[in-house]
């Protein structure tokens, strides 16, 4: 999943050639490729009983990129998948009731803060006390597992002054879990007989990256997908806090940052600056809440809401085909056993705790 996650906001700051024609030439073939594969995934899902179009889309992308490969000229367009995912999530707000969000907001916030804190502490403790993983790699894995997968690991990399090797290692490990949990969570939810709401919140609390959480949720059911995405968005909001907290922790003169990037400013005074928090804030979440309010207050017509539902399903298909195309199985094979064992221990523990907590707070 080597996409445009060079910064939390994903700016193409180094983009060259702003001629409109050059941009179209660069991006359009890959986007058209995504559209074709999305249509194929949609058609295939209607032919295979119980197959979720979104899971078929991810699987199609993984198989294609690891067998025939993706031509160089299609890669710029196919790496836009995060944009389509976030645009789809914004539009998904049309199906989420403002009243439901208000009613469950406090419980959801408690669950999110509790599970994020538990995961963060657990991974840090396991990394140092049990698995003897390098401190900075442990922090990257903790950020990725607790908040939002690869985006969080990349987001805090500057704060902990991690090396590129650590970032690549953490990203590979997290992606491996993204792929595995995407397919196992819906199956597990079915075996456990979870309700749509419980499954969605559980997946949103414990799976790592936003794309796989959304895909797994919708693979279970539409309602579960909406709950999973809302829960995951709430988790993502904590990225800014996490970046600031790690900046403070690693700014301690006694911290072992000898192999960090030279000249990095990690002063505690700037760690929680509004600018820093705003940079790490996922802006599309504001769009999501705006759509929730607009559709709940009847500014958007019912007919248009139905259209938006279909539109976000297509955007998700584009996103998940691209997500699959970004999975390089060879990279995943290079992931070490120790970080895998570490994250597996943490994931099993937090999943059990989260499931008990969700059932206790939200009912069966």
């Amino acid at each position, binding site marked *: 999943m080597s996409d445009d996650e060079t910064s939390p*906001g*994903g*700016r193409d700051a180094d983009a060259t050639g*702003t001629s*409109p024609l050059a941009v179209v030439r660069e991006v359009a073939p890959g986007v058209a490729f995504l559209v074709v594969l999305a249509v194929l995934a949609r058609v295939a899902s209607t032919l295979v009983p119980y197959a979720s179009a979104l899971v078929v889309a991810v699987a199609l992308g993984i198989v294609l990129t690891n067998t025939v490969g993706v031509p160089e000229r299609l890669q710029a367009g196919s790496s836009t998948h995060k*944009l389509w995912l976030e645009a789809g999530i914004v539009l998904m707000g049309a199906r989420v009731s403002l009243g439901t969000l208000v009613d469950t907001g406090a419980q959801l916030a408690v669950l999110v803060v509790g599970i994020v804190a538990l995961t963060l502490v657990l991974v840090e403790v396991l990394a140092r006390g049990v698995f003897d993983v390098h401190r900075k790699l442990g922090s990257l894995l903790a950020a990725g597992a607790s908040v939002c997968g690869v985006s969080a690991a990349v987001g805090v990399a500057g704060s902990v002054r991690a090396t590129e090797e650590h970032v690549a290692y953490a990203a590979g490990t997290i992606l491996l879990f993204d792929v595995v949990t995407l397919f196992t969570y819906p199956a597990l939810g079915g075996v456990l007989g979870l309700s749509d709401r419980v499954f969605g919140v559980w997946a949103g609390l414990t799976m790592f990256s936003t794309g796989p959480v959304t895909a797994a949720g919708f693979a279970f059911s539409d309602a579960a997908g909406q709950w999973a995405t809302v829960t995951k968005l709430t988790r993502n909001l904590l990225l800014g806090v996490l970046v600031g907290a790690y900046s403070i922790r690693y700014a301690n003169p006694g911290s072992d940052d000898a192999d960090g990037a030279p000249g990095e400013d990690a002063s505690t005074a700037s760690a929680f600056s509004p600018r820093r928090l705003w940079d790490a804030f996922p802006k599309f979440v504001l769009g999501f809440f705006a759509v929730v309010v607009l559709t709940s207050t009847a500014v958007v017509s019912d007919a*248009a809401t139905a259209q938006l539902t279909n539109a976000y399903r297509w955007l998700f298909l584009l996103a998940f085909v691209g997500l699959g195309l970004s999975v390089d199985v060879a990279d995943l094979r290079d992931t070490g056993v120790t970080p895998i064992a570490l994250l597996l221990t943490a994931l099993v523990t937090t999943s059990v705790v989260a499931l008990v907590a969700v059932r206790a707070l939200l009912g069966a």
Partner: protein
Amino acid sequence: MTTEPTADDSGTVASPLEWAVDRWRHLDRGWRAVAVAGIVTFIAQTGVPVPY
């Protein structure tokens, strides 16, 4: 931050379209997603069918 088309270092004035593309590419991905969603919402409001 550039707020309107201006001459670049070589003195060439960017067209409004080039300026817009340049702004778009430097925009945070989250805002780009909101813009895409806004365009889709506008199209949906006009009644263009979106089959699934």
